[in-house]
């Protein structure tokens, strides 16, 4: 049984690490803000899920797993929300800049 759990953790950790690294690389290398946000959300949703689930498998049915679940839940709620707010703010700012430019051109 514990072998399966260990195996599961290994797989999840492997996937998680890979996702984190790819996402971080994307945040660094991609050209514009919105593409970078796309990469960041990869680490923030899938990466987080994989890593935290991996730890949960190791922790077993304890208080720690409950806490990890809560952490996962809160992260899954907050990080898309802040990404959304960020994207929206950036988009609005860009639109405003464009309209201002148009107004200036007139």
């Amino acid at each position, binding site marked *: 049984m514990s072998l399966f759990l260990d195996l599961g953790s290994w797989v999840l950790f492997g996937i998680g690490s890979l996702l984190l690294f790819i996402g971080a690389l994307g945040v660094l290398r991609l050209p514009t803000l919105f593409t970078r946000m796309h990469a960041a959300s990869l680490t923030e949703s899938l990466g987080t899920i994989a890593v935290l689930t991996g730890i949960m498998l190791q922790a077993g049915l304890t208080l720690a797993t409950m806490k990890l679940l809560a952490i996962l839940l*809160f992260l899954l*709620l*907050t990080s898309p*929300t*802040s990404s*959304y*707010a960020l994207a*929206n*703010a950036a988009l*609005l700012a860009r639109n405003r800049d464009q309209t201002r430019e148009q107004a200036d051109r007139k």
Partner: protein
Amino acid sequence: MTILLAVFLLTMLVITAVAIVRTRDLFAAVMLLGIFSLLMAANFFVLDAADVALTEAAVGAGISTVLFLGALALTAARERESGDSRWLPLVVVVIMAATVVYATFDKPALGDPNAPVHQHVAPWYLSETPRLIDIPNVVTAVLGSYRGYDTLGEVFVVFTAGIAVLFLLGSGRPGELFSRPPDELSTGGLKHHLIPRVVGKLLIPFIILFGLYVQFHGEYGPGGGFQAGAIIAAGVILYALLEGETRALAALPESALKVMVIGGALLYTLVGVVCMLMGGNFLDYSVLSTNSVAGQQLGIILIEAGVGLAVTGVLLSIFHAFAARATA
């Protein structure tokens, strides 16, 4: 592994610190300070100082960013070139750093059980706490009882800071920290707020609950009044960000904050005075109950409550003072 983690985190810390000093864009500095504080907390955690890490997390991650932004709202976003030379401070800093490095040459190794720190007072705390106070978290015992007078002092440091901010900024009429122009609805700026509002309002009860947990769990795990106060204050600040200062003040009016600040500071001090009246020394909780261990525990719970109240009250008062100033 500890060393590896610590070295990595400290390297990032130094890079961030240098960047903070070098940038003239104050907003970038605030963002980098957020990272700095996260790194700091991770460092404390790696060094096994969970109570300190929790404090850094509670204050650094949420509240200090909000307060820095509040200050930025009152000033310009870019640092002005000052006429002062930057060379003298740099030289002083380099000399100081070199001196501290020099001092570490004879330092006992990290975690060395024979280091003086682990030989003198600390073993006594570890061996006597179960008998004298009987709570699992020795850090809380040290802060709450053995060195309770220091903690009283720290509460008054926070209190003084609050008084000073109120005195300087003046607590005028309530205002919005990040005030929006009145016809902002027509420009449609609020639309994107729907999702954050729903999620944020969902989170607030959990934040407050977690704050209470940290407050009352401090005897068993990391936590206590300072951390709890900061977390609860962060929850209320989130409410103020989502719903506006006016509604936050309606929920928790300034008079209530005042009561919290005075009540917290007085509660702590009065526990000490009651100990004196009951025949002990100042802050000697043993006399509070016929059983000295129960007395100690009661005393620690009471003073931690005082700390939590005062810290929440002061942090929120400071936040509102900045808000009132930003609008005026």
